């Protein structure tokens, strides 16, 4: 059996159908990593792209992400301890002085849907927090969100702090948020800027040169 029905169910956000299809795929002999990569993640890539193109809206994106999470619950027991292959590790947080989390949460959810492992620092995360976590888990990407123009300077400070700690070269820095721009990303020497949760995934894969 192919995974088309599963992909469609995730795209539609139909949790019942998607869980059933996941179960069928398992019973048909697909291995869990394949169901994840070629079924769930493939579906979420489509969801992200459709959102970026304005073909679907936030509620549909959320629903699909929730659907995928429910399917993961079916698959998780079938993976050997620690054997799920992740696309990479991402630290994400809203910067110091800023309590807005909606955008950050959407990005985090879509990155997870794409197969990344997320480490969410929450809101009001200082440069020191980002550095500390980066030293601890050695991420591929450090992602920062800000909704207030007055808190954007914290993004610059975090990039500086990563340099001071000698780890700037080991990570890619991605920034986003309503007042943030491509221009600002260049100014503070971030690696990239993403305007929404869908394009954040696309950009993440681009800068890490992965599919």
């Amino acid at each position, binding site marked *: 059996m192919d995974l088309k029905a599963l992909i469609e169910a995730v795209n539609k956000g139909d949790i019942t159908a998607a869980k059933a299809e996941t179960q069928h795929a398992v019973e048909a002999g697909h291995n869990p990593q394949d169901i994840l990569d070629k079924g769930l993640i493939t579906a979420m890539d489509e969801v992200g792209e459709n959102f970026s193109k304005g073909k679907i809206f936030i509620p549909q994106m959320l629903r699909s992400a929730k659907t995928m999470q429910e399917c993961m619950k079916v698959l998780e027991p079938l993976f050997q301890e620690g054997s799920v292959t992740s696309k990479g590790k991402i630290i994400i947080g809203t910067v110091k002085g800023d309590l807005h989390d909606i955008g950050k949460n959407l990005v985090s959810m879509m990155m997870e849907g794409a197969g990344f492992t997320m480490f969410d620092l929450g809101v009001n995360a200082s440069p020191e927090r980002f550095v500390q976590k980066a030293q601890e888990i050695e991420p591929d990407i450090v992602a920062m969100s800000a909704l207030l123009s007055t808190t954007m300077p914290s993004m610059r400070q975090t990039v500086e702090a990563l340099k001071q700690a000698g780890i700037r070269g080991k990570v890619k820095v991605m920034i986003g948020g309503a007042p943030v721009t491509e221009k*600002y990303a260049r100014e503070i020497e971030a690696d990239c800027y993403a305007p929404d949760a869908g394009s954040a995934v696309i950009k993440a894969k681009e800068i890490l040169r992965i599919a």
Partner: protein
Amino acid sequence: MIIVGEKINTSRRNIAEAVERRDHSYVAEVAREQAEAGAHYIDVNSGACLEREVECLCWLVETVQSEVDLPLCLDSPNPRALSEAMKHHRGEPMINSISLEAERFQPLLPVVTSQPCHVVALCMGETAMPATVEDRVEVGSELINRLTDAGIPLEKIYVDPLVKPVSVDTGMGIATLGAIARIMNDFPGVNTICGLSNISFGLPERRLINRSFLALCLSHGLSAVILDPSDKKLMATLLAVEMILNRDEYCDNFITAYEAGRISDG
């Protein structure tokens, strides 16, 4: 119903560009248009100017007030921008806004008590955004108490219950509406205020959603609103709803607006 005209905000590209090139007549025109459409305050926001926010905000204050004889709503989270802008402001401004956030409350309290002004009190807590009606009422009450203790009269306080998008959580509309009703009930004489556009973030047909939200806010007791007064359909909705809520004697405002061609259902 107090109307704050929202258009002069550098998050709008044409405004940002006009501020960049110090285009007096462009900004003046936008101010005038809002004043003529019925705004009581003109909001000015130069957040997108980043490090140059302070000088841009002062320029906006002078430019707008050289054209319209209205008080302004000084819109910034930056205490220094607000205190500098107040020095250039003629009359009593509205300060948008103070909240319980650590980096905002302490620095801003002396600013809002330094001279007579109206204050928007945003229901943002110290460590997190409010989730429920109860969270909002708790933060709002705390803000009202601290501000009145500092000598600000209740009627000069405008509580903003914080509007979040329904696209992310379909309970966010009633969370805001419930908070408005509770605060108006718990503190008779206080004002409430909010902007409309957050509610529709992430959805299509935003204007429809925003004006529907306006109607609901009004029916829950909202006493002031930040909106685009040049949006005819929005203003027509405002007039119709105020009339239905028995705030328009002999339907006078509505009929006058109709006769002046300002009620457009087209």
